[in-house]
């Protein structure tokens, strides 16, 4: 049960936050009509997709045995790394340090990405130990 919470519920919560954060509490810059969207807009779109995938993997992890859950959480950890890479390396956010996307969205996605990796790694370690 303990491993199901860590391997299933935690990715669902973190995935939901990754998907919803850049659209709500850690929103990116607004796209003005007729203007080209900036990098942060595409970062939010990518985070929405990755977040949903993490949450769905968490949902699947609730109903499978330990070995499969360990495998799912390896994928979740890699997706966590992708959550960090999207705003920092792959797509980016606006360069201005005082922009909301730079000041809030970027650190929020980094923190959520790190937490996703840490919790997934703990679950993999626990599930792998129990599977022996």
């Amino acid at each position: 049960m303990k491993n199901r919470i860590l391997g299933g519920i935690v990715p669902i919560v973190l995935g939901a936050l990754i998907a919803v954060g850049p659209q709500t509490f850690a929103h990116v810059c607004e796209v003005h009509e007729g203007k080209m969207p900036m990098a942060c807009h595409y970062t939010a779109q990518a985070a929405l997709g990755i977040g949903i995938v993490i949450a769905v993997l968490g949902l699947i992890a609730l109903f499978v045995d330990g070995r499969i859950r360990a495998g799912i959480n390896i994928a979740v950890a890699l997706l966590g790394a992708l959550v960090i890479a999207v705003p920092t390396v792959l797509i980016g956010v606006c360069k201005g340090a005082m922009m909301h996307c730079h000041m809030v969205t970027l650190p929020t996605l980094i923190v959520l990405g790190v937490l996703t990796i840490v919790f997934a790694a703990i679950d993999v370690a626990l599930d792998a130990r129990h599977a022996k």
Partner: protein
Amino acid sequence: MSDSPARRRITPASLPIENLRRRPFRTTALTVVVTILSVAFFGGSMLTLNLKEGLASMERRLGADLMVVPQATSSKAEALLTNGNPSTFYFTRDVAGQVSKADGIAEATSQTYIASLAAACCDEKLQIIGFNPSTDFVIEPWVASQYDKTLQRGEMIVGASVNVSVDGTVELYGRTWPVVAQLANTGTSLDNSAFISNDTVPQMVEASARVSHRAMPKEYADTAVSSVLIKVKEGYDAQTVAENIKRLNPEFASLGFVYPGGVTASTKTSLDTLTGYLAVFITALWIMGLIVLLAVFGSSVNERKKEFASLRIMGATRGMLVGIIIRESAMIGLFGGVIGVLASSLFIFPFSGYIGNRLQLPYLQVGLPAILAMMAITIVLATLVGMAASVLCVVRLGRPEAYLTLREGE
């Protein structure tokens, strides 16, 4: 081939870690307590250090003893010095020339402030500061370290937080402006400012008129002055010079006088209040945490009588038992300390820009050596507090009647 828990050989050296492993709930609960203490200590200390660094940076950037500003704009001018919002204000008549004639003035220069509009997605709201390179004594000294030429008409020097394009320009009012230098981080609103020479101010005003509403009326654009910055002569104080300025013209009595030294003092007071509350909170938390740890370790002596008695029967000395308990508690302190520092770092560093923005106080991240030192101090303190918590346990084991106490468990 790895050893399974059942086959793992337990030695006196590995006994403390095995004890912690076999009581996962107790170990986790105690580690969580130490983690909370470390988060509070490291987070609070970093916040305090960064605020002090921001204040020191602000003090270094304040080159004037007195600022003369238009009536009812003192608070806007003070906000420019700390970490406030950009604003536009200016004198509607020429006072700069008259003000600089007052007795006690060593140097005087004028500046013009214009707040740009937050237009499209990534055009942020900047504070545009027009200054006179020939008379300036406030900006030039610290700009000189990064740009030693004279700022030409149309050129710009920008603060650390300004979004400069890869081609070295900034887009403002629908026009691109060449940036000749970008300054280091100061932790104040100057990081979000663009510095231009007074000659460029009319161009900026015209540009603003073309894309949005005019930043200031056309008749003031060429001669607009927002503040006169004054360095007082040796032997005079800023208040006396302000009185001398008021005596020059009865209308000057209504002018705003800002004392940057006073702004620093009031910022320092706000900062001291904030850090004072933080210190009280952290101290209270540490005392409560220490009491919880003492209680848990103390009560564990009764709970572990059988275990200690067994060890004594197997030949463990009293010193060995004490060593085991101290190492157990030190390990909990160390784990908690490391986790606390990492957890705190995860929020303090990525969100440093946001924290500074919300506090509205000068906030500047301290250097790596200070961060590493604070991390080490936190981990050492957490380990020590863990060890201190086992003191009660050690004292009870050290009493002469310990043998009888241990025998109770046999």
